């Protein structure tokens, strides 16, 4: 078990390292990054201070050194919490990202929880009531959830929320609360604003999770050990929950880690439509502008979220499936 965790942990670290190398390279590949642009502008100004600034930047990021040197310098800074400078905003990266990363983590986690809490019971219901009216209705709703583009779903839900519930939509807070200090009312307001994004981001994931849960459970229900549990005299609900669901769920846990990328990228589209201050829109812009330190920092943080998610999923899997523990 410890060996298994250790191995997973090593995978995690090496994945992060690779992501940072590749990310750093790709962002530096095309000419004309924001640094070049920024330095150009300072040179044009030609004043004494601007020349000093150029020198400081060159020294800080080792711009006169080869790329691997630059990378090393950046990585060394990164692990100590110095993420570099955003040239577009002319601010330290670390001042720009934290709030957005926190919101992204909140929305992703909430979406994940929403997806599972909704999908698993529906999947169980559909499998145990195969071909009944309820099963058909869930299948139909699921197909809509799978096929509707998320930006459209976002717009439709926004209209519904505003028209029917008179709720302000878009952003994370109602205007009254934006600058208000933290209070229960503000938290409630935040949660209300999270409903639409979570439903939109989670819709297709929920629908596919329902399909998978239904299919897996139908397979497991045919297994001999389920029949054997019945033959022992267990109640049907215990047979389903204790034996069938537990076995049907672990292929889904393997997918749990892999579903994070689609949640994060799904959140990007939705955040743009709903103007949410998550990492998505800013990352998107940083990429367009080749604001390299900002972009690469976002990239690495997303990778960190992913590998941590995967690592947790691996641990969960080992907990659920003894065959992995004793591997």
């Amino acid at each position, binding site marked *: 078990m410890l060996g298994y965790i250790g191995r997973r942990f090593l995978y995690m670290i090496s994945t992060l390292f690779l992501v940072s190398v590749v990310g750093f390279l790709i962002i530096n590949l095309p000419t004309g990054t924001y640094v070049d642009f920024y330095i150009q502008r300072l040179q044009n100004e030609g004043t004494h201070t601007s020349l000093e600034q150029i020198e400081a930047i060159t020294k800080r990021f080792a711009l006169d050194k080869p790329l691997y040197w630059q990378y090393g310098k950046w990585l060394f800074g990164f692990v100590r919490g110095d993420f570099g400078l955003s040239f577009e905003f002319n601010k330290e990266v670390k001042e720009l990202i934290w709030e957005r990363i926190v919101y992204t983590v909140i929305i992703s986690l909430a979406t994940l929880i929403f997806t599972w809490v909704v999908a698993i019971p529906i999947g169980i219901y559909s499998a145990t009531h195969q071909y009944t009216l309820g099963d058909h209705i869930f299948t139909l709703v699921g197909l809509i959830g799978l096929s509707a583009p998320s930006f459209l779903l976002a717009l439709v839900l926004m209209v519904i929320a505003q028209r029917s519930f008179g709720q302000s939509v878009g952003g994370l807070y109602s205007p009254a609360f934006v600058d208000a200090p933290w209070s229960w009312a503000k938290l409630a307001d935040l949660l209300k604003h999270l409903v639409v994004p979570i439903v939109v981001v989670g819709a297709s994931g929920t629908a596919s999770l329902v399909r998978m849960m239904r299919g897996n459970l139908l397979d497991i229900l045919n297994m001999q050990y389920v029949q*054997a549990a019945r*033959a*022992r*005299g267990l109640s049907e609900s215990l047979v389903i929950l204790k034996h069938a669901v537990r076995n049907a769920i672990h292929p889904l846990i393997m997918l749990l880690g892999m579903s994070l990328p689609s949640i994060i990228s799904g959140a990007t589209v939705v955040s743009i439509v709903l103007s949410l201050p998550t990492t998505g829109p800013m990352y998107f812009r940083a990429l367009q502008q080749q604001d390299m330190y900002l972009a690469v920092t976002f990239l690495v943080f997303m990778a960190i979220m992913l590998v941590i998610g995967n690592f947790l999923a691996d641990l969960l899997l080992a907990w659920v*499936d003894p065959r992995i523990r004793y591997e």
Partner: protein
Amino acid sequence: MAELDEVLRVDELRTYFYTQEGTVRAVDGASFAVKRGQVLGIVGESGCGKSVAAQSILRIVPPPGRIVGGQIIYHRQVAADGASNLSEMLNLTEMHPRGQEMRSIRGSEISMVFQEPMTSLDPVYTVGDQIMEAITLHQNVDRREARKRAIEMLEQVGMPRPGEIVDNYPHQLSGGMRQRVMIAIALSCHPSLLIADEPTTALDVTTEAQILDLMRNLQKQTGTAIVYITHNLGVIAEMCDDVAVMYLGKVVEQADVDSIFYDPKHPYTQALLRSIPRIGQARKRLEPIKGIVPDPYAIPQGCPFWPRCIHAMPGLCDHDQPEYVPIAPGHSVRCHLFRQEAM
């Protein structure tokens, strides 16, 4: 009185599967009786409905299967103090398959060992968990006592190091060991009837012999009646007191084991015996049964065996279903050669 010492009587049982391709009449008129403390063998070719009959008794037939006719009578022993031997008659076909009444019988009074030891244990729980599950469900004991009994059961089924095995997961055990665990689970609540559905078919010959030995010994020790399902007549000869022969969902003949082997009446039973080698007999050519088992969706009209039967009487056998009639005490046959009028 013969009925008094029966533990189970199945009477004209019909279990059909209503699939999209049509109706499979998996069990279609099966009658047999199991005497208390004895072993009844059910023998028949693969696909003739043996497993479905077993599932029907426990009322765990999976959908789209359903019991559509017949009766399953279980005689529950109420007092067995020698002086009075009272039993209570329960009709299992009338019970709700998921109801409390049926569930309290399942696993405690009637239990089952399955054909595939590799897949009959849940891979995510220890074998101890799964034995204790049955014990805590049916006996009023706490977890510590249940664990103690689980270890005792493992010891009883001949497991080495039962105190260790109890915490093993199924994937750590071989097929033979897993089948021992299944037997331990099945016997953990001291059932009056154990249904063993081809418990050794998936095992190698050596392991098969060990499991057969074990079951025979346990049967002698505990006095549990057994329904032993197999397609192997050799195993029947070794294990059983009585034999029921099944063909296409029907029991075509039931008798004590000697009558079946030395005085078989039904042409199918006779054909079955001619198709296996026998020790101590002058070497004769083995005769496979001619023809093939018909498609379960298209069972022939009349007696289902007539297309393969050397005694088939045209106009009768391919038209009318024969009745299941007693021809001697404890010996019944379903064949037009033995009609009631003819006796």
